[in-house]
């Protein structure tokens, strides 16, 4: 059994057998457009970071694939295969209810001092009505409001680019989900996300 599930920007994701069970092999392949030193540094850093935070995030109370093995020499993480659809696909089909869950997940991570760093909609998998968070390669340990707010800003950015027709409602659900866990802090963090957006090139204000 061997199947390429996804060819992402950074890594190839294979479904392969590991110790007799089906597993996902996430392989960070060499990027020849970068000079070798930089590429190797990034792949190593991100592989370590991702493996560690997959485990920590689970301890914080969210669903992540179980890590089976890390092969640093090949920048590979072997982990549990989670069968399901990614959130982007569902959103494209007009289903935006999981946005609430996305907000909850981010808030749960933030409370545990973890900032996802790449909360794009394709990094959440819906499986048996549970939402799994994946792709922690850009995650950081931080309790800084600025870092948390960048997570929110990134979600907003991808929703407004990818599903403009459902943006308002979908981002509203993210904010509600976030506030349902983060409570009063949510207000400050969402306010900071607005500041980040206003720092953007040629921005003039107005934010929903």
């Amino acid at each position, binding site marked *: 059994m061997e199947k390429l599930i996804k060819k992402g*920007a*950074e890594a190839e994701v294979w479904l392969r057998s590991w110790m007799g069970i089906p597993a996902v092999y996430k392989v960070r392949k060499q990027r020849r*457009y*970068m000079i070798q030193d930089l590429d190797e540094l990034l792949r190593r850093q991100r592989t370590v970071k991702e493996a560690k935070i997959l485990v920590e995030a689970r301890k914080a109370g969210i669903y992540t694939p179980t890590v089976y093995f890390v092969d640093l020499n090949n920048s590979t993480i072997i982990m549990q295969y989670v069968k399901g659809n990614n959130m982007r696909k569902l959103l494209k089909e007009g289903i935006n209810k999981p946005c609430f869950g996305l907000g909850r997940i981010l808030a749960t991570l933030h409370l545990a001092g973890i900032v996802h760093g790449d909360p794009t909609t394709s990094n959440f998998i819906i499986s048996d009505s549970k939402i799994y968070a994946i792709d922690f390669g850009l995650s950081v340990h931080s309790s800084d409001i600025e870092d948390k707010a960048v997570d929110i800003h*990134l979600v907003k*950015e*991808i929703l407004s680019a*990818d599903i403009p027709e459902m943006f308002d409602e979908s981002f509203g659900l993210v904010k509600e989900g976030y506030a349902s866990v983060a409570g009063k802090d949510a207000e400050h963090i969402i306010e900071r996300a607005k500041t980040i957006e206003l720092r*953007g090139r040629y921005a*003039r204000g107005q934010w929903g």
Partner: protein
Amino acid sequence: MQGKNITMLGIESTAHTFGAAIVTSEGRILSDVKEVYRGANGSGIHPAEASQHHAIYASRVLKQALSRAGIRMEDVDAISYSAGPGLGPCLRVGAVVARSLSSYFSKPLVPVNHAVGHIELGCLLSKASDPVCLLVSGGHTALLCSSMGKWRFFGETLDITVGQLFDQFGRALNFSSPCGPEIEKLANKGKKYIALPYTVKGNDMSFSGLLTSAKRMIGRYDVEDLAYSLQETSFSMLCEVTERALAFTEKKELLVVGGVAANKRLAEMLEQVCKRQEATLFVPPVEFSGDCGSQIAWVGMMHFQNGYSVKPEDGFVRQRWRVDEVQIPWRS
């Protein structure tokens, strides 16, 4: 208007370049003339000086654009100008010229967003139809895709642009803006990679920490190695985010426009990104990747053919004007 081949005068005046071009509705560029302001060594664009430069060169550039196209002002069907975003004093020169011509010759006036100009002229000249667009210049560093009648931000810099990164680093070495070509020359001679901050956050990037670090290293490291490392680090960030955009959207075209698109190393890296994602790279000719009148004339033409123009007294300028505020009816 349909069916008839019409001509548009476009006036560019957002920053260092004053340009004028004549473009037809078939997308032919009949002429494109420009004059570029340069500040003193070690300094950037002084807005007042740049606007004076534009005012001095405006009539000469206009006359040349008309004579090279072989037409008179009376033959032009409409006039478009860069209404923003950009430096206020510079924008006003272009707007004043455009409004005056519009009023005197009774021609329709079309305000144009400069960034949309880069993207749409890039599409016209490179024949990209529905690309992911990397817009990388002194004013912008962003990845954009069009949907529902707008160019929308997929990812963007969180602080300064790559053009600013190169300009500010170059100025610390006593070059004058735009410094990109000088940095590229230096970088070509660099050999040793010096590690610099690499900051990608999701689909966004940050270059300010990179600038601070690189500037601090001036004097302590070989300047060619520094330029090389600065270019490699910033371009790797651009390429990573670009590859993410291609993988996420599953689009098969990549268009790169803006002043920094003229850099050969960037084009070479993006070519490899495209190979990995089985996409095609579209690069407009180098003389049209930076600021020019044609970008304004062409978008002006598209707006005009979709029924948009304003009265001379309504010809606005807008220093802050994001790409995703502009309705693009021809891409809905």
